[in-house]
């Protein structure tokens, strides 16, 4: 097995990973390992924008941003982490603006800001409706400029940890099929979310929760996985996202009776209530038979914006509707339904992005610091990638200062190689079949509305699927660019993520943010102002609870 040595390895080349790499590579030998070329990372799909309290449009400041974030999180976010996010994000945006990102501007040359769900002011900076694309390109340009080493199209499969200390990463070079051992003093996991656990998701095929699963297997604490954000407006069928910016710019939602139903669920914020609320409202309308033609969707009406504003502010939305739903949004309503969108939970870290394993840091969607709590506000996750990506990179630099290059975990590495080889030999369970079953069950039983028996059933089903997975085989025997193998490995990751979600959903007997239990429809601050922490120890998951850090704002009823 080839051994590759660097000071710091960053797994993932989305915004979080690239930001971390830019910081870490300033004074160390840093390399990124990513299963896709950096520019193909799912961050590029982010549309609507990034929150920062520049106050260009209104009288805003970091505290107001923090308040909205904490309230939006249904008070499950750790408020000291939220403070870091909201205080630092303006500088991060200034930085990326200086790197060359083309954010939309106001006539006087300052950054434009648009309203977004759950924000009390227009606070969302944007680049049309391709903000992630713009930012990802800009950071990638900086990677090129700074000559950062990227191992692109390398799939990491496991983290080597000994005595709760990180030692290395194993990865398969997809182009050759060969496995290599990456040895480094520290690793930053930035592998994104696990949207593909669900049948309906806005996420890329790549969003399979690899890092969360790898860290979990290695013994790290994973936090709040039951909090899964569903997005209200995705195209029927493909579940391609129609950005919240569509509502921010003035679009509204209508049911089969042509009624703007959000008026009765969130009388003042209406369509711009936080996502969990809008999602449940849509789902309630559908369940009451007020979906369009009795079906599983409602209308998103953008016709009142006029085609000029549509083209100027939402060109991608316009094209997506045209190309993927055959709807001319300037003339007709877009049929939309809710779908999984964001993973609030993840690898538990402290405010310096350090996990419970020494030398293992995490940032971005795969991490849980936690700034999003029970419900992320639109525009806050791009913010998180920049702020905590940079912190992770800087912290890793500090950590490695006193570290020597670790030894090689030969035995563990060989065991991992054997596990991969086993996939080529195993039985006749089919990977796509298992994946489909998993996605269905999770959507049905661990989706927007949950209850005790559904959660129990989901957990049981996932465990059964895990057993069957050990019998799943890769039919394609060629090692070169074997996407069959890649999908089999990813399914293994998905199963862990699903188990963690189902387990959390079962445990949490209350409703908070995105987690809604019909059998416990109220928020319960007395018992549940806590994070759900699950760690894999001694061959099984161990659950603990950790109190939320409330430093700024006392929890209060969440009304919009």
């Amino acid at each position, binding site marked *: 097995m080839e051994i590759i040595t660097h000071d710091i390895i960053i797994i993932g080349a989305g915004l979080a990973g690239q930001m971390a790499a830019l910081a870490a590579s300033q004074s160390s030998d840093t390399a990124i390992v990513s299963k896709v070329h950096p*520019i*193909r990372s799912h961050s590029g799909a982010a549309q609507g924008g990034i929150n920062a309290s520049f106050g260009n449009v209104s009288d805003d400041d970091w505290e107001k941003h923090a308040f909205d974030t904490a309230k939006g999180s249904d008070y499950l976010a750790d408020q000291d982490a939220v403070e870091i996010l909201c205080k630092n994000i303006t500088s991060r945006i200034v930085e990326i603006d200086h790197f*060359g990102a083309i954010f939309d501007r106001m006539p006087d*040359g300052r950054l434009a800001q648009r309203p977004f769900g759950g924000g009390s002011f227009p606070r969302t900076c944007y680049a049309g409706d*391709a903000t992630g*694309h713009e930012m990802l390109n800009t950071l990638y340009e900086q990677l090129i400029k700074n000559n950062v080493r990227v191992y692109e199209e390398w799939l990491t499969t496991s983290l080597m940890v000994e005595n709760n200390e990180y030692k290395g990463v194993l990865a398969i070079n997809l182009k050759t099929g060969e496995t290599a051992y990456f040895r480094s003093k520290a690793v930053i996991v930035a592998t994104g979310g696990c949207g593909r656990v669900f049948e309906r998701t806005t996420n*890329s095929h790549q969003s399979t929760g690899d890092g969360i699963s790898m860290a979990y297997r290695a013994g790290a604490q994973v936090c709040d996985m039951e909090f899964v954000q569903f997005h209200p407006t995705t195209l029927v069928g493909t579940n391609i996202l129609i950005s919240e910016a569509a509502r921010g710019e003035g679009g509204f939602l209508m049911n089969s009776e042509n009624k703007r139903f959000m008026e009765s669920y969130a009388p003042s914020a209406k369509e711009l209530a936080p996502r969990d609320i809008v999602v449940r409202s849509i789902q309630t309308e559908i369940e009451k038979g007020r979906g369009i033609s009795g079906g599983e969707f409602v209308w998103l009406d953008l016709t009142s914006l006029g085609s000029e504003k549509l083209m100027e502010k939402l060109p991608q939305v316009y094209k997506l509707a045209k*190309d993927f739903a055959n709807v001319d949004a300037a003339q007709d309503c877009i049929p939309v339904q809710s779908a999984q969108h964001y993973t609030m939970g993840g690898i538990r870290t402290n405010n310096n992005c350090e996990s419970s394993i020494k030398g293992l840091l995490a940032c971005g969607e795969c991490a849980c610091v936690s700034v999003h709590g029970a419900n992320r506000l639109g525009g806050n996750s791009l913010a998180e990638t920049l702020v905590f990506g940079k912190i992770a990179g800087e912290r890793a630099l500090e950590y490695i200062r006193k570290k020597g290059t670790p030894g090689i975990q030969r035995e563990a590495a060989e065991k991992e190689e054997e596990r991969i080889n086993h996939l080529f030999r195993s039985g006749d369970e089919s990977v796509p079949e298992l994946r489909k079953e998993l996605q269905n069950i999770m959507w049905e039983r661990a989706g927007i509305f949950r209850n005790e028996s559904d959660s129990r059933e989901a957990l049981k089903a996932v465990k059964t699927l895990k057993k069957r997975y050990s019998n799943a085989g890769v039919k*394609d025997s*060629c090692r070169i660019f074997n996407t069959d193998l890649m999908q089999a490995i990813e399914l293994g990751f998905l199963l862990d993520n699903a188990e963690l979600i189902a387990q959390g959903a079962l445990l949490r007997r209350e409703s908070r943010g995105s987690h809604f239990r019909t059998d416990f429809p109220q928020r319960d601050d007395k018992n549940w102002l806590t994070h759900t922490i699950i760690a894999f120890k001694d061959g099984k998951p161990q659950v603990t609870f950790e109190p939320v850090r409330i430093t700024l704002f006392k929890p209060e009823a969440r009304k919009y």
Partner: protein
Amino acid sequence: MTEIKLIIFRYDPSKDEKPHYETYTVPWRQRLTVLDALNYIKENIDSSISFRQGCRSAICGSCAVRIEKRGCLACKTTIGEETREITIDPLNHYKVIRDLVVDLEPFYERMKQIQPYLVRNNTIAMTTKEMLIKPEDLAEAKNLRDCILCGSCFSDCNTLDVDNTFCGPAALVKTLRFASDPRDNNEGRLAQAVELGLYKCPVDQECEFACPKEINIRRGAIERLRYLAVQKELAPLPEHKKLINSVLDSGGIVPVKAKPATEMFPEYIKEFDGEPQAEVLLYLGCIINRRKQNVAAAIINIFQNNRIAVHLPGKVTCCGSPFMRIGQRDSMRPFVEKNFSIFNDYAARGITDVVTSCSGCNSTFRHDFPKLAKEFDIPMNFRIFDVGEYMYEKIALNVKGLKKTNIRAMYHYPCHIRASGLAEDIYIDLIQRIPGVELVKVPKSGYCCGGGGGVRAAFPELADRLAVRRIEIAKESGVDTLITNCPFCVLSFERVLGMKEERGEKMGFRIIDFYEMFSEAYSI
């Protein structure tokens, strides 16, 4: 149930000596995309098929392949119910890693050549505030930022087929993205673009047809960069200056050697009895007027056979296309003024249809002149047509008793005809009205003759290689004749055929001018 056949390029370098195609049958459903179909195959028929995918929403650029030989995104290509068969290949100009997965390294490398990042003279310290930039100053860069680096344009680029030192379209788009950013301090970008092949592109627009993000690569980036290069006196290239001087001296890009057609024919031609079906102003363009008088005669003959009276003004001047194509937009005024004032004069007399016989003139009149005319405040009281378009769409074409010609050929679709928004099928249909003609089609019709964009003047060998390649593509399809309707294309092909003959190489290949052929069919 409707079924679709997918014919897919397969190659496993660990086993296969060479690639082969495999056919899979996939059930059709509403809004089925090519990526859906590939996933269907992978999940249900053959799990070994390899392709890249990601966002499935046309933003990550992973899934670029060639469908019917043209680069595009699999996730953005919907399969219509009437489709029976689709051929899917990996992108061109890259090494195949496996099946539909290619190594995009050459594309990324070219991109890296141009310093694809904002370059600042770091004199301005990072402040706590964003830079103040007026939205209008970022407008151009903003328009160019949509590129998702999918590599489709690079796959389909004509020039790259014969010259791999060319940086390719996306790198030029990226160059302008930075060159037009007021924050960028790299003054060398335009010179570098010229260096990396800005003028090697015949502006055939093939890249633009491939681009899934609908980036205006040709006019919005390549020709714009040329314009800026001219402003900075980095261009035109010395050879272009000669060409330009010839136009300024003689009013056309080819010198007057024989009597021009406008002098061979009267100003007004109506050689039939009775009322004309229509009256048109015929603008020949310098090549036909000065070199291809036979074609002029043929067009006039076609019009006479269709009872169309022709006005052939002698005083018109060059369409200015060569200036436009190499970036000398600022020299266009006299051409617009002179030609349009003549056209407007005729329009005042009721002759409002201006018909051009050269596709280069046509697309210049159609695309560039209206904007320029607006700037110069010149009215446009007439409409522009191509001769073929006029035959096809404006009149009841007389096809009675057309003489049979037994011929098997391929139609060469000129890029300027395409740029004018005229469908290939118009010309294919017209050609097929002549009895006895059998046309062979190539799936991708955008192959270039090498004659456009000033390439012939500045890089004659490159232009020749393009022309030869076009001929070879036809030969590979088993035909020995190209029919076309652009005098630039005809000249390009004739030139390389002539050179080959001179060197004693027997090409056994013919170029036929569409109008001559059609006119011939009338002569019974």
